[in-house]
């Protein structure tokens, strides 16, 4: 008992002493910037034989919700690091938080503007006509749309926890949006505050996220590394940028409410998204415990595209655990070898 008390006391002292954790564990360079994003390049960390590095760059497209350093919170459990060690040339789109004057930025601006600009920049830089796209959650939706609109630029498409069918019966997040008048919401707010979004997500598991998590934290305060990880995750959860109003409006209306990918009714700008135009190999990875993007929401992609090389990976993890958990560290090597077999 005395030992326990000592541990906890020391633990709380650590909580007080802990510095703000570093966001990214792996060093990167900002190699290109557009109005709404920074393109990050991650130089290989472990010595990789020159010939082992993929000639085709891999571009990670992150969601507009939350920040992408979730993929790299700690070096020993880093999705980014895993991809580097698997010999990929890793780039990542880090979205810039929209300011007030960005409220009319729409999905076309993100997809046909920034993403396309980054793709073209990379193709030019690497002297290749195509690259590999890896989309995360909403970034997966963007990547899928991009692959349908610009199939000539995408060699391989990797989707992770990406919703395709937004109307599966177990999708609580989608249900929460069904009767929200999103036009009015955006008209009232302009950009959607990150704080509001955070509450929407936390409200889906109010007891686990509002309470239990912190009680659990009390029990790990004496472990330096675990405490650091907890703080990093907390920092990530708290770091919730605003969303550009128009893009949010379109995403809720066209995807959550109209289920446009399944119904084939999505337009990006004036261009229809025709999933049958996607012919490249697809690797669709989803979490069996994902409460934000239920497995069926991702699985729905099978058969919707014209790809003849479609692979699924059902992983026993949640929406975030699929990147940060210990067992999830087996995923990047799988992605690496899947890509290497399709250069």
């Amino acid at each position, binding site marked *: 008992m005395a030992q326990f008390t000592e541990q906890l006391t020391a633990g709380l002292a650590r909580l007080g002493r*802990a510095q703000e954790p570093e966001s990214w564990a792996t060093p990167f360079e900002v190699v290109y910037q557009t109005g709404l994003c920074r393109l990050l390049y991650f130089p290989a960390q472990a010595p990789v034989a020159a010939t082992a590095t993929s000639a085709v760059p891999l571009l990670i497209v992150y969601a507009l919700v939350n920040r992408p350093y979730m993929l790299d919170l700690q070096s020993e459990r880093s999705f980014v690091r895993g991809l580097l060690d698997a010999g990929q040339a890793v780039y990542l789109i880090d979205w810039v938080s929209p300011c007030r004057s960005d409220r009319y930025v729409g999905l076309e601006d993100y997809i046909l503007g920034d993403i396309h600009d980054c793709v073209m920049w990379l193709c030019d830089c690497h002297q290749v006509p195509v690259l590999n796209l890896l989309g995360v959650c909403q970034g997966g939706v963007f990547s899928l749309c991009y692959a349908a609109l610009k199939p000539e630029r995408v060699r391989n498409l990797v989707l992770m926890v990406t919703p395709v069918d937004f109307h599966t019966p177990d999708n609580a997040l989608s*249900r929460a949006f069904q009767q929200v008048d999103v036009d009015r919401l955006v008209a009232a707010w302009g950009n959607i505050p990150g704080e509001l979004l955070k509450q929407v997500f936390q409200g889906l598991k109010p007891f686990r996220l509002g309470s239990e998590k912190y009680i659990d934290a009390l029990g790990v305060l004496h472990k330096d590394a675990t405490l650091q990880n907890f703080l990093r995750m907390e920092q990530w959860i708290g770091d919730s940028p605003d969303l550009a109003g128009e893009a949010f409006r379109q995403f809720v209306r066209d995807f959550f409410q109209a289920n446009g990918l399944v119904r084939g009714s999505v337009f990006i700008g004036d261009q229809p998204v025709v999933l049958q135009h996607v012919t490249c190999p697809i690797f669709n990875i989803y979490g069996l415990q994902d409460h934000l993007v239920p497995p069926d929401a991702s699985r729905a992609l099978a058969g919707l595209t014209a790809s003849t090389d479609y692979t699924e990976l059902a992983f026993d993890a949640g929406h975030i655990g699929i990147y940060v958990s210990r067992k999830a560290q087996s995923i990047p090597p799988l992605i690496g070898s899947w890509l290497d077999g399709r250069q």
Partner: protein
Amino acid sequence: MAWSDDFIKGLTAAQQRYWEMATEMSPLKPGSVPKLEIPAVEEKFGQWEAMMESMTPSPLQSVTRQVMGAGRAYLNLAAQAQQAGQEGSSPVDGWVTAMEKHFGDWRAQLERGAGSLGLDPSALGSNPFAFWQQLLDGKGTEQLPAPLSNLIQNYQNQAREFFKAFSTQGQEAVETLRKNLNQMAEKGQGVQSVNELYKMWVGTSEQVFGRFALTDQYQSLYGNMVNAMSELRTGINGFMEQQYRAANLPTRGDLDGLARKQQELVRENRSLNDQLSRLNSALQQVQNELEALRANNKAAVEAVAAGAAKPVQQEKALEQPTGKTAGKAEQSEKKDDLGQIHGVGPKTIERLWDAGIQTFEQLAALSPEQAVALDHSLDAKGRVIREDWVGQAARLAASTSRLV
């Protein structure tokens, strides 16, 4: 700013007291733990929390607050269980009863329709719905004009309906927990610690709430609350607009108009850039074709010249197409399908051969005057010009050379 050593030392006593209480209450056996006064817990906890908050580096303050809040809630419930144990009944029962009372009180408060939502975070430690409450907690709303206070009323009502349903789910979860505990008791099993009980409660609550979140009722309650909030905010925005306008200041509407225009310009710019790059690549293609034509033409001329064994100008070579030369023999090895030219049939092909033209390049190389001369010699009645055989041949030559 991080904590100093002195501060940490000073805190140790308070912390030790807190953790001793928290851990000693863990064994849920009546009479096995010393008596604990809830007010004392509150007081100690309050002091400690205040100190931590003021001394914690700002990026960590909210985390610290959450951890402390959850800890305090946890401890409070444990203390209530403890008290029940002191009074002779089961601590587990005491805990569950305290939880029931919490949700019951909350719901009753919502039913009474008190001004605020009456969200009491003590059971959760933190309030996962704080955002919805913020709009209602602002001071001075009573001074707003009537249309706005109606909107506030409406939002309060909708939010209250949502939280009533939420608190009902909370009650249901505790009832389910009680049932599960009874079932365990029948099997001779029991809960060993506050933590175990707490974990069971969280699990049950998430299960019950998760089911509720998938119902139509939830969908409509949540939608109504968000929509009422949007209306309220729109009303407040409108009110502000009036104030700005009255003060002759730029309004939000003005700024939004600018932002919209700006985004339109961005798109226009992108579309122009797209066009420019398409035109650039078309131009590049034309230039490439031109280069290829020039190269082919030069090769043809050199070949003819070499065949004539004397320097011959391009025009000369074409003016003497029927001359039997080694060049012609060479060229006869490479014959293009001149029939691909629209307007050229089998007969014309033969006559073109007779005129010494066997490849697209040769035809493409004709000057306008030469084309007219060719038209006369073929008696084509202007078709060479009208159907642009020279241009057609140039395009075919380019595509053939690309294929090669």
